[in-house]
């Protein structure tokens, strides 16, 4: 089952800290959808996820001010 983490309104580094904590609760291979409202935070979170060995399945703007990352643990 794909989980969703809404981080709109959060700032760095808590965006990645909360992403990391949620991922720790998931099973390996499970997907997580992350919603952010800042382009810099989106870039930072996706880069940090890659550096910790997670696979980014999708990264896109879903509206003018909201970005979505889909990551596989």
């Amino acid at each position: 089952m794909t989980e969703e983490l809404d981080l709109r309104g959060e700032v760095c580094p808590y965006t990645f800290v909360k992403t990391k904590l949620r991922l720790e609760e998931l099973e390996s291979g499970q997907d997580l959808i992350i919603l952010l409202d800042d382009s810099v935070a989106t870039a930072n979170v996706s880069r940090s996820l890659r550096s910790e060995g997670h696979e980014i399945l999708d990264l896109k703007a879903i509206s003018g001010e909201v970005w979505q990352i889909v990551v596989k643990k």
Partner: protein
Amino acid sequence: MLPYCRNEEMRSGIIVSGSFTDEQIKRYSRQIILPEVGGKGQKKLLASKVLVLGAGGLGSSAIAYLAAAGVGTLGIVDNDIVEVSNLQRQIIHGGNIGLSKTKSAEYFVRSLNSDVDVVTYQERFCADNAGKIIREYDFVVDGSDNFSTHYLINDACVLEKKPCSHGSILRYEGYVTTTIPQKGPCYRCIFKKPPPPGLIPNCQEAGVFGVLPGIIGTIQASEVLKYVLGIGELLAGRLLCFNALDMSFFEAGAEKRKDCAVCGDRPEITKIEQKNYLDNRPEECGL
């Protein structure tokens, strides 16, 4: 699920991610974000119980950083009172002259991090209470100020199978080593016998550079955190020596001794008896 904290006020906090409160996520964010720590590591720290023997110079810096990192339970043993002459190096006792060091340390920890439970022992650490106190903890920090107590702490840790970071300082120099039960050398393997009385000047005769216990005590705290987290390399079988005047570190290797009186093949010390620790004169400046 309850958040990883130990008092009712925090338990009522809003849990925003996993078992952490929003405040905990902010407080520990810079270490949770470390790949080797994460939420799992932070939970280990919050569940850990560490005993600090001596709330003096070494103990001050160890206590401060262990509390800041979120070690869940800190036991603090000391029977001294805070004096103005302590404040040049014992950095947690400001404003508490005349108060017991255990109470002063407890106030400091509470003001720094309410996640930490403090257990104070306002008593001299001796053969009668050593095993009983140490038994309750996962790791021991030796911040004592005399050889007899170093040996007592070591022997109690060996017999109770507890890891320990030993630190010691004098003038501008200090050393630190970590002992892991049933692995590598213990303190007695490295220092078979104390130096003869009078050889090592006491704190009043020799003085101590104020930052020295800060540096050595912080290394001891680092050893505790790495042990609890299960990361990095410990100072097991390694005596790390520091000279603040030269600003140099050097390391001496140490090995387990088969003839060690407490951890050797045929140990003479199989239980803690006060007669083995009668000479408690302060000869170093751990406190």
